[in-house]
């Protein structure tokens, strides 16, 4: 059974009258990866700072690797925590190699380990250049490299993909996958839900300091009330009950569990059928708007219609649907 590396229970943080986060419960297991999603100012960075002990909770408890991060004992625990801050900054007059060497020594690691990490993030050729000459993406890579120092058991990454090119973004998620296989827990904050698909096993949506949703992507899709759409393209003919969105193109909504049965029932000569699942950004927007039912194209067509047979002789070609009066 995997152990919790990070646990937050009923955490709130207030700055005077302003409530930054409230009533947050969150746990992260060994090898797990949680995506913390919210718009700018939603409270993501505040939560990460609470986990690092940079802020004290106004209410609730925070435990990271079994320690209170604001306590004296947390200093040792921080050897096993990697952190990449939002808009990471380094001293501009130091070279990349000097910077990673400094942080490596702070974690009781040999500077050679720092150089290996620079190579891993593709900065080995720029290692002798001053950080002041680095692009935003290069600084982000350097920030990611320092977060990997010390073989961390918990990685807290605040907006880690900002400024990364698509090629390195893939490599970044590859490195994260390797770390997770080795048992590292990863908390990844982002305001772009779409890029987290496939990289995280759970998503927590934060809005105005409150947790709106917590679950895997399929659960969030279901919670958002967004139903996948099926799009059928026909050479000619009509589909009763389907919505025509273009000449010969029809759409209907279909709940995820019914899609397979629905597709099996479609005739071979029906033309092409596409499944249009709600994009993650739509899911995120729907969660922010609050719970609503059936955000798809009206009531679920898969519940009301069942394709019974291919088009028979004399009938118009295409899909034939029979409405079921339930």
């Amino acid at each position, binding site marked *: 059974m995997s152990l919790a590396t990070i646990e937050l229970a009923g955490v709130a943080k207030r700055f005077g009258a302003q409530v930054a986060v409230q009533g947050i419960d969150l746990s992260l297991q060994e090898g797990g990866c949680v995506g913390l999603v919210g718009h700018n100012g939603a409270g993501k960075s505040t939560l990460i700072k609470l986990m690092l002990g940079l802020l004290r909770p106004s209410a609730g408890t925070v435990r990271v690797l079994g320690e209170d991060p604001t306590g004296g004992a947390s200093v040792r625990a921080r050897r096993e925590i990697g952190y990449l*801050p939002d808009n990471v*900054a380094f001293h501009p007059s130091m070279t990349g190699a000097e910077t990673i060497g400094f942080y490596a020594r702070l*974690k009781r690691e040999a500077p050679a380990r720092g150089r290996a990490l620079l190579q891993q993030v593709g900065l080995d050729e720029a290692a002798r250049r001053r950080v002041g000459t680095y692009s935003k993406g290069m600084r982000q890579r350097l920030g990611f490299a320092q977060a990997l120092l010390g073989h961390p058991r918990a990685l807290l990454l605040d907006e880690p993909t900002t400024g990364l090119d698509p090629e390195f973004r893939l490599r970044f998620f590859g490195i994260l996958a390797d770390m997770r296989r080795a048992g590292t827990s990863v908390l990844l904050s982002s305001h772009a839900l779409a890029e987290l698909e496939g990289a995280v096993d759970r998503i927590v949506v934060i809005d105005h300091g409150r947790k709106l949703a917590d679950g895997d992507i399929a659960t969030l899709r279901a919670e958002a009330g967004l139903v996948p759409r099926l799009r059928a393209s026909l050479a000619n003919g009509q589909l009763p009950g389907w919505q025509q969105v273009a000449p010969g193109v029809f759409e209907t909504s279909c709940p995820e569990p019914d899609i397979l049965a629905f597709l099996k029932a479609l005739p071979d000569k029906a033309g092409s059928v596409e499944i249009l699942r709600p994009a993650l950004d739509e899911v995120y927007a729907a969660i922010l708007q609050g719970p609503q039912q059936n955000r798809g194209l009206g009531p679920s067509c898969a519940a009301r219609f069942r394709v019974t047979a291919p088009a028979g002789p004399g009938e118009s070609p295409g899909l034939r649907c029979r409405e079921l009066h339930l």
Partner: protein
Amino acid sequence: MNPILLIANKEIQESIRNRWVVALTCLLAIFALTLAFLGAAPTGLVKASALAVTVVSLSSLSIFLLPLIGLLLAYDAVVGEAERGTLALLLAYPVARWQVILGKFAGHVSILAFATVVGYGTAGLVVSIVSHSDAAWPSFALMIGSSVLLGAAFVAIGYVISVLAGDRGAGGGLAIGVWLLFVLIFDMMLLGVLVADQGRMITAGMVNWALLLNPADAYRLLNLAGTSDVRMFSGMSGLAQQVHFGVTSLLFVMALWVVVPLSTAVALFARREI
């Protein structure tokens, strides 16, 4: 390596890259050489020690310059790093907050000590070679050592400002205010009180103790009235008879002016949210 030494080393490295070390050393050397030669010019006629006169000139300069340098080095240490975003990253490492303050202090005082010893030392060496006088070397060495101590006191005060300030601008303003308070306003206020009192309630002993409430005044007492070969040229022979504190006591007071603000900065930083 110990985190304190690592942080101190980084501060020194950054200051070398920023040309802070070179600029400070050159500034102090130029001031010291100028004052040494201009101030010690008439010593040949009055048979005074050129080095002793240089101590008087340099002490008067140091009272203004070293507190300013100390505050400039330190006021940015916490609030500046917090604003640039480097402090949050540093504190996410296995480093205690008191180690961060002590590491920065060790680095900043090393820079200050290097600049003072090399800058003033060069002037002292040149003066003693040119004037063939070395009798006042102990006073000169005391002046250099206490100048470093004076700078260190203001570095420590600068950290208190840096921890308390909400942003760099406020920190800079506060640092200038503190500098004015200790090098100008404090003495003017004391003088104003003495004039108003006309010797009715305030005794010489009370003035002595009041002077210890300002590290710049403790430094002044130490260097201008503390040693016999200097007080004659500083115009403080009369004052020296009224001063109750010896060199050791004054050095102890100056050391307290380092320890107390530094401990305050550590205690405040431990509670500060980043």
